[in-house]
């Protein structure tokens, strides 16, 4: 599903070079739920940005869903992001002046889908996170947990092959966080591959695998014995 081989990412300024990832290799199988942990500045977010084709890397190879995406142009990368990848962010990143329906609609707009099909998909996605009845509300009218559910619905509406989640429970209290985790497990159980960056060790144990990164390299890659819920 996702194969990164010997990926290097160097950030350069006029005076300094920072190696965010060094010879980073990771293989994720289809249907896996992988958590990425590590201290701040270790390269977790850089990995997630590269995996989501939001940034380019300096060297190495990246194969996603059987396609070498290392040298894709802007347009092709946007297309891959739109069709194969779903993003969930720590701060939800909903658009404040769009209602829930329109927020979830955003990725479909760039797919050139017909209005009727978009409506069906949006309502299904909102229903799956239990917020269909509030589709005309603005994000500011929802709690943090509900906003993250909308963000998950937006990530799922395009039926992506895998989800990239960047500390999706980081801004939530423990009860709400556990509800969001349950939802992610359900999504994973339905066949969507999930890669989740987290600081929370307890969440890391709930996935199939936990990859620990240190100084831009995979320090450990452990299979969890606790089955994902």
């Amino acid at each position, binding site marked *: 599903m996702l194969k990164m081989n010997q990926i290097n990412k160097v950030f350069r300024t006029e005076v300094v070079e920072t190696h965010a990832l060094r010879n980073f290799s990771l293989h994720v199988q289809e249907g896996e739920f992988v958590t990425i942990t590590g201290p701040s500045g270790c390269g977790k*977010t850089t990995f997630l*940005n590269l995996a*989501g084709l*939001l*940034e380019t890397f300096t060297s190495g190879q990246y194969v996603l869903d059987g396609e070498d995406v290392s040298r894709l142009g*802007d*347009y092709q990368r*946007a*297309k891959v*992001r*739109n*069709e194969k990848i779903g*993003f969930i*962010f*720590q*701060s939800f*990143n909903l*658009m*404040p*002046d*769009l209602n829930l329906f329109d927020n979830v609609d*955003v*990725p479909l*707009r*760039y*797919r050139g889908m017909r209005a009727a099909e978009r409506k069906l998909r949006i309502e299904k996605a909102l229903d799956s996170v239990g917020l269909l009845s509030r589709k005309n509300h603005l994000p500011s009218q929802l709690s943090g947990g509900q906003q993250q559910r909308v963000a998950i619905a*937006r990530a799922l509406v*395009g039926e992506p092959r895998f989800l990239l989640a*960047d500390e999706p429970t980081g801004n939530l209290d423990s009860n709400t966080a556990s509800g969001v985790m349950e939802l992610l497990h359900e999504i994973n159980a339905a066949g969507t591959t999930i890669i989740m960056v987290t600081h929370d060790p307890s969440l890391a144990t709930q996935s199939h695998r936990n990859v620990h990164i240190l100084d831009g390299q995979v320090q450990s890659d452990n299979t969890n014995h606790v089955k994902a819920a």
Partner: protein
Amino acid sequence: MFLYYIRLSLLSYKRNPVLSSLMVLAIAIGVGAYMVIFTLNYVMGGDPIPHKSSQLYHVQFDYGDPAFTDFEPPPQLTYIDATALLQATVEHPRSASSKFVAVLEPPGEELRPFYVNGRGNAADFFPMFDIPFQYGGGWDRRADDTQQLVVVLSNELNERLFGGANSVGQTIVMDGLNFTVSGVLDRWSPAPKYFDVNNGAFDPMEEAYIPWSLIVGQEMRRSGNTNCWKAFEGNSFQAFLNAECAWIQFWVELNTADEHAEYLNFINNYAAEQKQLGRMPMQIEKRLYDVNEWMILNEVQPDETRILTALAAMLLAVCLLNTVGLLLSKFLGKSSEIGVRLALGAHKRSLFTQHVIEAGVIGALGGILGLGVAALGLEGIRILLGDMMTNDWMQLDLRVTFITILLAIVSTILAGMYPIWRACNINPASHLKTQ
């Protein structure tokens, strides 16, 4: 997607109403001011009769006194030459014309006598210049020859005298003479007043039109410019008519190149003949001018309007520069949204289009407000110039309205290019964590 982008633009406006309104205001002021000057230029420099301007010719002769080196040949004709041309030009529509002023005694007792500005012209004047009639019509050449007391009233004078009713056949008294109304003009105010640029190219239209032969035959009080370059021989009206004084405009309609060549040959021969008789001592290069050439020769569009245009363009540029800064602030403030859209699969081209449309919407709103600014500016000019100009001319017509909106949209989009380019080329990754 177009409607989607329009909707996003309006939502974006609502999100930053103060910043967006400042941009709209800046564009409105810049575009509005520019359109005021554009309208002035449009009025002063436009072709007032585009379908016929290359067929109507004004005649100029080699008048003047060689002793005065800075003496420009006057643009009008003397009575001797105007009469000669009128008599010789039979096969082409032609007209001599000049202004007069008279005291009009209104019918009934409600109105007191008042002065009217009138024009004496030949019968062909009306069809030559495509002058529209509300009632009746002009007169024929026989009326010119026999000095019939007929009059054509302007729409406004007819309104004043007869309440706008059909007054054809009615009698009015001017300078003690009974004139029969043969027609009433429809609203007509060409800009510039190309058939008489020598007497105020933007002066109001005359109120009454009578056969030109009456100006002489009844010794009506002439008004308008008179240029003389030789002393009169005597004090009588006849002495004035025989003098080297130019006070008559002479137009002829020539519809083909052959007609033009033939007529030019005729007036060249006429001028040569007059020179042999000791008249027309100057030498001019051109004796026939079409409408547009005539307006250029007489500098209908003053240099000041070009300076004003440059100033207005500079003001527009300053307003647009201001808009560049405001748009930059607005669009860079949307970096997080742009980052999210990129992450969700938007291509840079889509985002570019979205923001071009957003700039276009701001421009359109600025254009609509700019129309108001332009209307206020034109009203100011109308108040400033008062009776010096005909009110009808300084208006925002459909063409000016369209150009205003288009100018606002295009200039705002151009001003938005750099901010849009900057906004669409952000690194999305660096903005997704920070929202």
